[in-house]
């Protein structure tokens, strides 16, 4: 007769207790349950109360208004839009304008921020002082003033459309914005794009091959002349065979304004300029802190290997610094996106201006519109931090 080993007592119940109630067990669980129920009740009360009050005051509620015609126009839209489109379209127009200014602002802020940080760390006395001065000046002035400054300064400096500064009679700069010829695709457009794509893919393959050779056999192969030749030559060849890929719709001054061409409105320029220079000052400090956090032995080791200062920074210091830089950098990206809502001060049609502004006052449905707008900013912010976290995870993984 064999003696069956006694089964260990089930861990399920105690585990559940711990999971639900922490160290306090079941009583803790009941307290938590009550707390959640109370929260739900408060939320319900708030919604029910608001609804009842809105009804009592006969303020329209619900999201039905979104299907109504907007009836107003917008100065900049990335998608076709006219006043007879519904409010949902206005929402999209505003959202895209917000995203446009945020993405471009983030790009320039990052580039400028890195440059200023490197400048500030540079052994060149003048360069480091100028960079330091930039940071101290820009980050200590309120961003709204900077937006207004750029807007009014840019506007004041520019002539009216009839006296606009023109380059070759096809590019015009005036207080209506920068008008450039608009490329319109022709028959040669698709082959051109295909040729360009092929050239880029081949160039990347070449570069990877060269890197492999370098890592495996220590052979340095110069590929950039071939890559460049491909990227320029192949599309050029396609253009010669199939004809020019685009023709240009050249703007012409007609009446008060330019007809044809594409236009970048001054509101956009001023907002992007202000947001990216402002945020760049903070990014510069973050990048500087990140670089300084890398032990100087790393730099010395790089130098003693015979690498130049630029290469040391690019290959050794910045990859290590990025770990420190990324989290606060994400904050700055989020700040820039949120600050873009100051656009309303200079008439740039962002989400807050056209949706939480004009649409709100036309429909009077403050709760719904503010709710949607807050939700959208929350979503943009969460997506931005998710992307940045993913990037950070990749970096830390690649560094082992």
């Amino acid at each position, binding site marked *: 007769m064999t003696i069956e080993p006694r089964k260990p007592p089930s861990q399920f119940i105690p585990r559940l207790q711990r999971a639900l109630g922490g160290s306090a067990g079941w009583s803790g669980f009941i307290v938590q349950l009550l707390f959640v129920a*109370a929260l739900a009740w*408060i939320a319900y*009360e708030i919604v029910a*109360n*608001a609804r*009842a*009050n*809105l009804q*009592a*005051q*006969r*303020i*329209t509620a619900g999201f039905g208004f979104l299907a109504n015609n907007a*009836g*107003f*126009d*917008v*100065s900049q839209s990335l998608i076709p839009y006219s*006043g007879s489109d519904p409010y949902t379209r206005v929402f999209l127009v505003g959202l895209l304008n917000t995203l446009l200014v945020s993405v471009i602002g983030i790009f320039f802020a990052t580039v400028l921020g890195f440059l200023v940080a490197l400048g500030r760390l540079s052994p060149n006395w003048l360069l480091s002082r100028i960079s330091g001065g930039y940071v101290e000046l820009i980050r200590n002035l309120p961003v709204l003033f900077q937006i207004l400054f750029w807007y*009014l300064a840019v*506007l*004041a400096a*520019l002539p*009216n459309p009839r006296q606009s500064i023109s380059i070759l009679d096809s590019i015009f700069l005036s*207080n*209506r914005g920068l008008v450039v010829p608009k490329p319109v695709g022709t028959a040669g457009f698709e082959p051109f794009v295909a040729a360009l794509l092929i050239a880029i893919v081949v160039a990347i393959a070449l570069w990877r091959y060269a890197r492999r050779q370098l890592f495996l056999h220590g052979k340095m192969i110069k590929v950039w002349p071939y890559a460049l030749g491909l990227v320029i030559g192949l599309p050029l060849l396609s253009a010669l065979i199939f004809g020019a890929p685009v023709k240009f719709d050249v703007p012409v001054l*007609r*009446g*008060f*304004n330019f*007809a044809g061409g594409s236009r970048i*409105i*001054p*509101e956009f320029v001023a907002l992007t300029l202000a947001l990216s220079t402002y945020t760049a000052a903070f990014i510069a400090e973050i990048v500087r802190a990140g670089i300084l956090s890398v032990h100087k032995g790393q730099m010395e080791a790089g130098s003693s290997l015979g690498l130049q200062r630029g290469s040391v920074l690019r290959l050794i210091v910045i990859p290590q610094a990025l770990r420190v830089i990324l989290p606060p950098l994400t904050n700055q990206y989020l700040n820039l996106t949120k600050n873009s809502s100051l656009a*309303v*001060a*200079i*008439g740039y*049609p962002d989400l807050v*201006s*056209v949706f939480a*502004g*004009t649409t*709100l*006052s*036309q*429909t*009077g*449905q*403050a709760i719904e519109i503010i709710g949607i707008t807050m939700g959208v900013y929350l979503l943009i912010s969460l997506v931005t931090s998710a992307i940045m976290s993913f990037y950070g995870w990749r970096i830390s993984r690649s560094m082992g």
Partner: protein
Amino acid sequence: MKRVSLVLTLAVAAGLSAQAASAQTLKTVKDRGMLSCGVSQGLPGFSSPDDKGNWTGLDVDICRAIAAAVFNDPSKIKFVPLSAKDRFTALQSGEIDVLSRNTTWTLSRDTSLGANFTGVTYYDGQGFLVKKSLQVKSALELNSASVCVQTGTTTEQNLADYFKGNNMKYEVIAFATADETVKAYESGRCDVFTSDVSQLYAERLKLANPADHVVLPEVISKEPLGPMVRHGDDQWFDVVKWTLFAMVSAEELGITQKNVDEMAKSDKPELKRVFGTDGNLGEQLGLTKDWVSRIVKAVGNYGESFERNVGAGSKLGIARGLNQLWNKGGIQYSPPIR
């Protein structure tokens, strides 16, 4: 302990919102000892602070008249300057008791905002302001122009309708406040500034060289401007409505700031009703018997207020036009006070 404070918080919150729903505005105003009046952020002639910080203007006079009727003191007012965009929210939330801020009466605003218009203080229409140097004679010549407009106004929609209706292209740049809009127009960002005609005259005064700018002849819309109160408080609605009617009636009856005491002694039955020496009309409104004389003493009759703020006696110099009394060629009309 925690639970008790939570329940308390909830009770207070529920109590507050219940109060907001069925507000007795007149009582609230009396208890507070102060009228909270939503005005513009500075529109000469209608509502703007002078160099000493005193608010003046036609819209301001309506508030002063209400304060005079309630407190017999036209200075018991807190003025709340509001942008076009924020004005309705401020009224809905109860931050202000009355919105007297050059606001156009439209059907959708009457029905969907939870607020009611009490009357028309100024019959206006939308027009265009352009630089003289552009040599534009008519709004129909404005094809492809850039237009500056204040956001959150009926103006924005009228503009879209007008240009679309006349097959003209335009570019609209919308700003949050009137000042920003005018600044952009002055800096040359726009060819045209559009708004209610009265406002165009008022804003033109703020420009560096008012004479370089001209208001085009077209009036493209009806803009009846008037005060607004929250929906669902009929007593307060009546008080605000009849305050304006009292000013118009006073003009019609020839009661002025100067002769009001004299007229109050009159034996005419009509005047006796108005001044409350016969009957208690004012008390029926929840005010006092002498409400009309309080109003006229404080701000004068409608005509006096008009002339002082926007008419011949002011910098704006706007003609009475539609805002003349009904028996003098205009359409300002008050139902009888009886």
